[in-house]
């Protein structure tokens, strides 16, 4: 039976996480849970860039996690070739990561908006889950798998898969058997 584990890592908005968990179950139709982990993410901090290396964080937990896990953090993430990433997941992998750092309105100098933040975090979690389920970016602009490189683009899409992505994700997850 497949399952999704949400893992907070340096993430203090637990109420937000709990409210998202039920939505994740509803959309993915998989049971989910919130589990803590004692991984010290400071070792992935790059002092030159002032950011955390998302790729290395995923790699650190790769051998350990057997269920599909999405890590949640409020630190700013990067991968070596990009200035930042909202999240990261390997295609067909087991671990994804999402950062709320650039999803918060305050990053753009705007007043806090919790409901908007919740929507964005949910969309990013489902998006990274989609990659773990073997989905590539979708050309349907409102599918959750549409590529988004800015917060505005995240706001345009829905938190749901389009029909084609929904079918593909179900088939792939069933085949994975995690």
């Amino acid at each position, binding site marked *: 039976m497949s399952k999704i584990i949400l893992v907070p890592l340096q993430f203090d908005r637990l109420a937000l996480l709990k409210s998202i968990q039920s939505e994740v179950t509803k959309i993915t139709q998989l049971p989910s849970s919130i589990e803590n982990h004692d991984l010290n993410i400071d070792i992935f901090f790059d002092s030159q860039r002032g950011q955390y290396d998302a790729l290395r964080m995923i790699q650190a937990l790769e051998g350990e996690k057997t269920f599909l896990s999405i890590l949640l953090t409020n630190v700013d993430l990067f991968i*070596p*070739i990009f*200035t*930042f990433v909202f999240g990261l997941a*390997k*295609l067909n992998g087991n671990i994804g990561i999402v950062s709320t750092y650039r999803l918060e309105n305050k990053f753009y100098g705007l007043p806090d908006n919790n409901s908007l933040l919740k929507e964005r975090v949910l969309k990013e979690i489902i998006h990274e889950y989609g990659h773990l389920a073997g989905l*590539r*970016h979708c050309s349907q602009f409102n599918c959750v798998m549409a*590529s988004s490189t*800015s917060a505005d683009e995240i706001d345009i899409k829905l938190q749901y898969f389009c029909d084609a992505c929904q079918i593909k994700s179900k088939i792939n997850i069933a085949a994975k058997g995690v």
Partner: protein
Amino acid sequence: MKISDTKILIVDDEQIVRESLASWFEEDGYFVDTAKDAVEALNKLAKTRWDIYFLDIKMPGMDGLELQRRIHEIDKEAIIIIITAYASVDTAVQALKEGAFDYVTKPFDPDALSRLTRNAAKQRKLSIENIELKGSLESLTTPPEIIGVSQHIQEIKELINTVANTNTTVMIRGESGTGKELVAQAIHAQSSRRFSPLVEVNCGAISDTLLESELFGHEKGAFTGALYRRKGKLEIANGGTLFLDEIGTIGSKTQIDLLRAIESKEFTRLGGNEKIKSDFRVICATNTNLEEAVKQGGFREDLYYRLQVYVIHIKPLRERPDDIPELVQYFINKYKVKMNKPIEGIDTEALKMLMQYSWKGNVRELENAIERAMVITQERKIQKKDFLLNQSQQLPSFNNQLSLTEVEKVHILNVLEQNQWNISSAAKILGIDRVTIYKKLKKYGIKRPQHV
């Protein structure tokens, strides 16, 4: 070009850059490959073309700049995006001067990279479309093929060559179906006006009042139903050629207006006062006896002489049977592709029959006959039985090269076919008895076809 049709090659000596970029583009649905240096990239380029190249500017061995030059030598339209660190922006600018599409600095802003790649793909698509469109434009302006080996067709080609590059008015005479329109197209395509439109008007197909509006255009409210201003064909043909088919059918009022417009290259739209100038060349065609029409007063003499400056007279097909074999093969080739049927040619007997047929509808009738025969035939070569020619149109006279015996044979065969192989009816027409017919059939080796 769909995203999945866009092929990206990433050339960078850093494995992390290659792998990260490749997986990022793959997630977006691009077809991606990587190369660790210029040599590997050129080897990959030798096997297939890529739409977008991401080239690291600093690589061991051949650098990105030199690789860009090599790629452009092979594919001028290739889109190259230079990957650079801040330190080497100067070199990236040099690359831009040498034709790179853009450059990106490491680490990349995902939004900027995404936009840049989309624009690059669009640019590539436009370049490819441009090449394709240029190709089709070239084929549009290529003169149509005029088929035939006869002396007459060679003369027609000469006449076309002579007149094409002048602005002289051309009159094309010939029976219906002889290819007058094709000659007009050839003149236009060989003229310096070939990049402007060839506007064709079939004067016989529309009433005289409509023809006037068609030729000169009309202003809004010029007549009931003229809801909008409309440009006429003379105006549309500006810079190009106006081909007036069946010129002999136009009414006297239009003849006067047309003559004035041809002479002054100025006219007014129906219901308008504004003088419109248009630089058009006139080619007209007719299958009627214009001289007779002039005599009878149906066609203005002044217009007749204005149009009759350079005349190309196309002989009917029956007067140039030598062209038939090449025309037949041309139509077979044309329709075998369209029908996807592996037909190689035509049976000798069938060809002989076609060469003796009167072809009242000329080349058009021949083309239709070939098309129909190709639909019907089950053989690799079209057979005589595949044709359903109107036997009453069979040539009453024979080719001058036939012997008396051959004439008798062909004539008996024609009469038999005309009478659906009813021997008694044929004998009656031929004025001989049935026994004699049988003897002659035996003598000439003529056998009753199976389908009769």
